[in-house]
């Protein structure tokens, strides 16, 4: 997945996050849960792990954009919630580049965690479940569109 394209380590200037936190946070949570629900529908996330997420509250914060999302998993779907971060069972915090590197499988979460680029707080076992669940996902190959062929 990383072939030919490397996400550099970067940090957005502080004013971006200053603006970011002032924007409504609801859309972030909506976008994130919508994405996760697609993965659920495609059966990409193992059911035994999903069952362990039931009613747990997650909080994700992108430090340098100020983006925040709070959500839970209930009755087979991820749903945005309005809780304050203190009420979450598990909190992930990192800069945008670290999150992107994680999702692209370019960096290992343990590496980012040891280097203190990713902060995980709350229920450690829940964190491990989420991490291992995401690691085990076999992201579908992007279809080969004719435009990319030589």
């Amino acid at each position: 997945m990383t072939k030919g394209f490397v996400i550099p380590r970067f940090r957005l200037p502080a004013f971006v996050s200053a603006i970011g936190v002032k924007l409504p946070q609801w859309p972030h949570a909506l976008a994130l849960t919508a994405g996760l629900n697609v993965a659920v529908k495609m059966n990409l996330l193992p059911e035994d792990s999903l069952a362990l997420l039931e009613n747990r509250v997650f909080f994700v914060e992108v430090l340098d954009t100020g983006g925040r999302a709070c959500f839970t998993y209930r009755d087979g779907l991820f749903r945005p919630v309005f809780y304050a971060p203190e009420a979450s069972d598990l909190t992930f915090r990192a800069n945008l580049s670290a999150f992107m590197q994680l999702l692209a499988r370019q960096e290992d979460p343990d590496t980012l965690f040891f280097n203190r680029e990713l902060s995980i707080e709350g229920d450690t076992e829940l964190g491990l479940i989420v991490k291992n669940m995401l690691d085990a996902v076999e992201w579908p190959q992007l279809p080969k569109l004719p435009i990319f062929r030589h």
Partner: protein
Amino acid sequence: MLRDKLPELICPAGSLPALKAAVDHGADAVYLGYKNDTNARNFAGLNFDQKALTEGVRYAQSRGRKVLMAINTFAQPGRVADWQAAVDGAADLGVDAVILADVGLLDYAKNRYPDLRLHLSVQGSATSYEAVNFAHREFGVRRAVLPRVLTLAQVELVIKNTPVEIEIFGFGSLCVMNEGRCWLSSYATGESPNTVGACSPAKYVKWEKSPGQMTTRLNGILIDRFGDNESAGYPTLCKGRFEVNGETYYALEEPTSLNVLEILPEIAKIGVAAIKVEGRQRSPAYVAQVTKTLRAALDALASDSERYHVKPAWQADLAKVSEGNQATLGAYNRPWR
């Protein structure tokens, strides 16, 4: 150097994507385990269910790579059947070998599946050629993984005195070098790798963030405290900082990573059959990075052993994914025994 004398590269797979990453980046074999306490990396959400196993074995074997199944914890009282079932499952799947530690289980596998290839796990803690030869004589063990306590000269001594293939660790986080015999996790939590398949299980771990620092506790015991810019380590007792005689330091072991790139030529020369990479708990990204680097190093050695030298780029790639800030040769080059 002949390619067939090159040590095999054995890489960790905690998930199907990790297995594929290992195979795609040049592992000769992957090792993996069931999603239960029959293996020593029994972490929530990690490892393989039947479906993933079937696909994993197919993926690797159809590309000419081997799959080794770790069933390397010790059968717990009253539940021996669970461990035997794991061996049955592995034999059914047609894995290339099972990695066992429990002598009762070795005996079961040998009698039940005479054709199944048996490897002695590092958890079996065989550190002398007598121990390795015992496993060979009694159970027909074909390969033994040596604990990370031996110097290279001691490894060579074992190799010279046994018909059993010898596998050693080449990269990854270091256990305190007492594999199979460590009670630290049990002391703190009542659970350890040999019993429940996990050292310092996550449910006992607490990371507490406060302004300027992060505190790690294992079942309430303070393990370490990190400043915001300090790198963190695994929350195990062996890697904690403790106060001893008025001084606070890594009293047992510093969080370091083993890295044998520098002594790869010697390792090949003394006849090590395989090099193992630690880290089934790590992500596909780690597996890909480490496998790729070690493959490049082994290939460089194969093509011209005289001119083998460690490329700075290899070290940089490995340093990035290491636990702790330093890499060591572990016991391999230790002057004392």
